[in-house]
């Protein structure tokens, strides 16, 4: 029994050592499943290269150390008649195994430093994009272009909760991806609006924390058009797993056309603010916005979660004066999870959602909130 157990022990232990080796060998083919992606930027390539150097250094040391250990476990067993010797120190070998690893580390510090310098090489960008993390979505602003939009998960709750089959792009699809051109150096300025998030695109080798009150910078430049998917990597509450990053890299002409189109949209939108909206239109749009931006906390039925998120149904704010309701959305409630939506939602969407909250679930206030009211409140401050 004991003998067999030992044989099994040895074979399993060697499995532990072999697994990482097998992993790195497989990495050449099935890259995405077992190993770090090489990615499409200099930074991701640098991270991959230093990662592979480390894997090989560790593998060589590991094979040596564990190999010797298995040999000892085999050769110096009592059952083979081994008699213990009594030595317990040897200055030479102890110095050796202190100095040699130190030298290995010093040698490894050089490529490690070079790679890190590359990560920090954020100077002289062609395009700058401000990325703001919200609970639980990303906002992208093309600095100097007047283009700004929100990017949220597009996968439906029905797919998440198994009421519908999961699509091919489950949790990897957003309402509007970040669009970038090939061949341009792009600097990302990342910040957070509420809690800390972290913006990560593995194929770019960019992972920057989105900290409220602080900007962290990263950069990317790639020649490969395509769609690259990333994630939020800092715990940010219940929607942490549900705010992916999707980036589309396009040829320059395509990108220019896209940008021109976005600018035109912005101009067109400006004209709708002044327009008088019908109550029915606001109700339809409001429900859409509510489910997208409010229901996560206040719940789809407006009932909230007792003790955590207040109900809107029957709340004094929703039933009180219109201006007070607008103020809560524009200013947020300091010291609580209720943030300002002034930069997250357009005036039209804020007006619509306020109208919806004041007239849904039996909150029959009956008034109509117009985008111009929201704009006026904003400008009065």
């Amino acid at each position: 029994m004991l003998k067999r157990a030992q044989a099994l022990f040895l074979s399993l232990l060697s499995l532990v050592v072999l697994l990482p080796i097998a992993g790195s060998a497989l990495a050449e083919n099935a890259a995405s499943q077992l190993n770090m992606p090489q990615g499409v930027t200099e930074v991701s390539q640098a991270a991959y290269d230093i990662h592979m150097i480390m894997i090989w250094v560790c593998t060589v040391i590991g094979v040596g150390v564990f190999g010797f250990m298995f040999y000892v476990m085999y050769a110096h067993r009592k059952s083979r008649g081994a008699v213990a010797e009594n030595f317990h120190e040897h200055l030479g070998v102890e110095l050796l195994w202190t100095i040699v690893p130190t030298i290995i580390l010093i040698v490894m510090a050089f490529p490690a430093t070079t790679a890190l310098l590359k990560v920090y090489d954020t100077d002289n960008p062609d395009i700058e994009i401000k990325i703001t993390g919200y609970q639980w979505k990303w906002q992208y602003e093309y600095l100097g272009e007047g283009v700004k939009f929100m990017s949220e998960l597009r996968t439906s709750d029905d797919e998440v909760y198994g009421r519908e089959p999961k699509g091919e792009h489950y949790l990897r699809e957003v309402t509007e991806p970040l669009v970038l051109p090939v061949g341009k150096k792009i600097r990302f300025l990342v910040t957070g609006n509420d809690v800390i998030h972290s913006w990560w695109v593995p194929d770019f080798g960019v992972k920057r924390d989105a900290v409220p009150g602080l900007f962290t910078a990263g950069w990317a430049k790639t020649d490969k058009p395509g769609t690259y998917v990333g994630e939020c990597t800092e715990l940010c509450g219940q929607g942490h797993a549900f705010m992916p990053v999707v980036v589309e890299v396009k040829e320059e002409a395509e990108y220019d056309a896209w940008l021109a189109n976005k600018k035109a949209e912005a101009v067109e939108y400006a004209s709708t603010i002044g327009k008088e909206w019908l109550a029915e239109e606001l109700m339809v749009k409001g429900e859409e916005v509510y489910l997208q931006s409010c229901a996560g906390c206040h719940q789809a039925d407006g009932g909230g979660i007792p003790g955590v998120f207040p109900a809107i149904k029957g709340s004094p704010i929703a039933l009180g004066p219109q201006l007070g309701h607008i103020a809560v959305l524009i200013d947020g409630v300091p010291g609580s999870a209720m943030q300002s939506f002034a930069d997250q939602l357009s005036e039209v969407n804020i007006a619509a959602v306020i109208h919806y909250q004041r007239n849904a679930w039996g909150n029959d206030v009956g008034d109509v909130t117009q985008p111009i009211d929201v704009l006026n409140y904003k400008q009065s401050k």
Partner: protein
Amino acid sequence: MAHGPATLADGWRAYISRWVFTTNHKDIGTLYLWFSFAMFLMGGAFAMVIRAELFQPGMQLIRPEFFNQMTTMHGLVMVFGAIMPAFVGLANWMIPLMIGAPDMALPRMNNLSFWILPFAFAILTSTLFMEGGGPNFGWTFYAPLSTTYAPESVNFFIFAIHIMGASSIMGSINIIATVMNMRAPGMTYMKMPLFVWTWVITAFLLVAVMPVLAGAVTMMLMDINFGTSFFDAAGGGDPVLFQHVFWFFGHPEVYIIILPAFGVVSQIIPTFSRKPLFGYSSMVYATAAIAFLSFVVWAHHMFTVGMPIAGELYFMYATMLIAVPTGVKVFNWITTMYKGSLTFETPMLFSIAFVILFTFGGFTGLMLSIAAADMQYHDTYFVVAHFHYVMVAGAVFSGTAAIYYWLPKWCGKMYNETMGQVQFWVAFIGFNIAFMPQHFLGLAGMPRRYADYGLQFADWNMVSSIGAFIYGGAQIMLLYNVIATIRNGKPTTEEKTWEGAEGLEWTVPSPAPYHTFAKPPEFK
């Protein structure tokens, strides 16, 4: 006046009084060990909920909000409730026996430091039943998620952390006082068993960093309730400050967890190699070096937070250095086995698995120290795999080894060797199936603390969950083995349970009498 402990035969009042009012280091050690095992099972149950939910993509069993509470409570309970008290329990039992002292230096404080712990964890666990739920911000509780955006139960969490900190500080002071004052004549510092050495150094670490943790949670308390803005950017504070303060505690904390484990293994490997520990003094110096380095590397947990490059480079180099003293330890253990006369009883199997798996975790730790690569690893399952290799295969495996190793001394009964080895194999195989695939998940891009994931991660998550269930089962087997040994184990009265065992604890009868070393032993 020596008198025997009350047993159930003396009536339940006397029996309960014995345990509540005990100042006996063996009783208190036993209390710590049983308490930590109960917490270990509770934290394990939380882990089972996590792995069950992650078995398949999509939300099947619980809501993301509850998932976050589970990850948070799993981490907190395992670190503060299972591993730390388990090693304090071992220290209580073994340090007086190893240094030839009759008891701990401060027995009443010893009683207090244990008995406040159940209250701390009762408070912490009760938050799960409160309106708004328990802590849901991760065991690292980064502000402002843990302040402005936290559920109201966060105040109970803060109170519980304060109590745990007080308990740890009292336990540490006691260990330091005991070792400094109560060693048997002739036992100089450099003749102490290595387990004692690692615990003294750990105790100093605890005394140094527990107040820092208390400071962090107190600042949170002020931010939440008294309108300060330590961590609130809108009020001129800085969320990153929280991370610096937390990790100034948190990095030494991981060595607090692992150093006593080093000590345990350094006792067991020589016993079953029938050969003295190789490089005793370098082991002591390496432990001290690791402890010192633990204070100067904290920001390697924050490589993506936007530090200036000079800071990143410093923390990277300092972190890489830790590999040197850690390597010394591993080489010493292996050389202890070299030209020994090896047998592979259960404690030795766990210790060898400790050396291998901990070293593996050390390799991934070295990879994580490289800042440019860490930009990809950070906050992914690669990190989860890394710290479970060092925490579970490190602390839990060595703790299990310690139980099998000293159980005959504690209760005068021998465990069933076959059952012990079976438990080892189930634990070893289950552990690797659970955590090896998490390396792949992390490298392929799965972030940690995700309640749900894309379809590309489905296969390895399923494998990992199966491994976790096997590993969970192994802990039930451990519980069974311990209870079966206490009730029906083969009685043993030998002083020296193991052929190759050395040290004062093996000079007293088995089971160890309620009072030992009333007269200091001779130590040469």
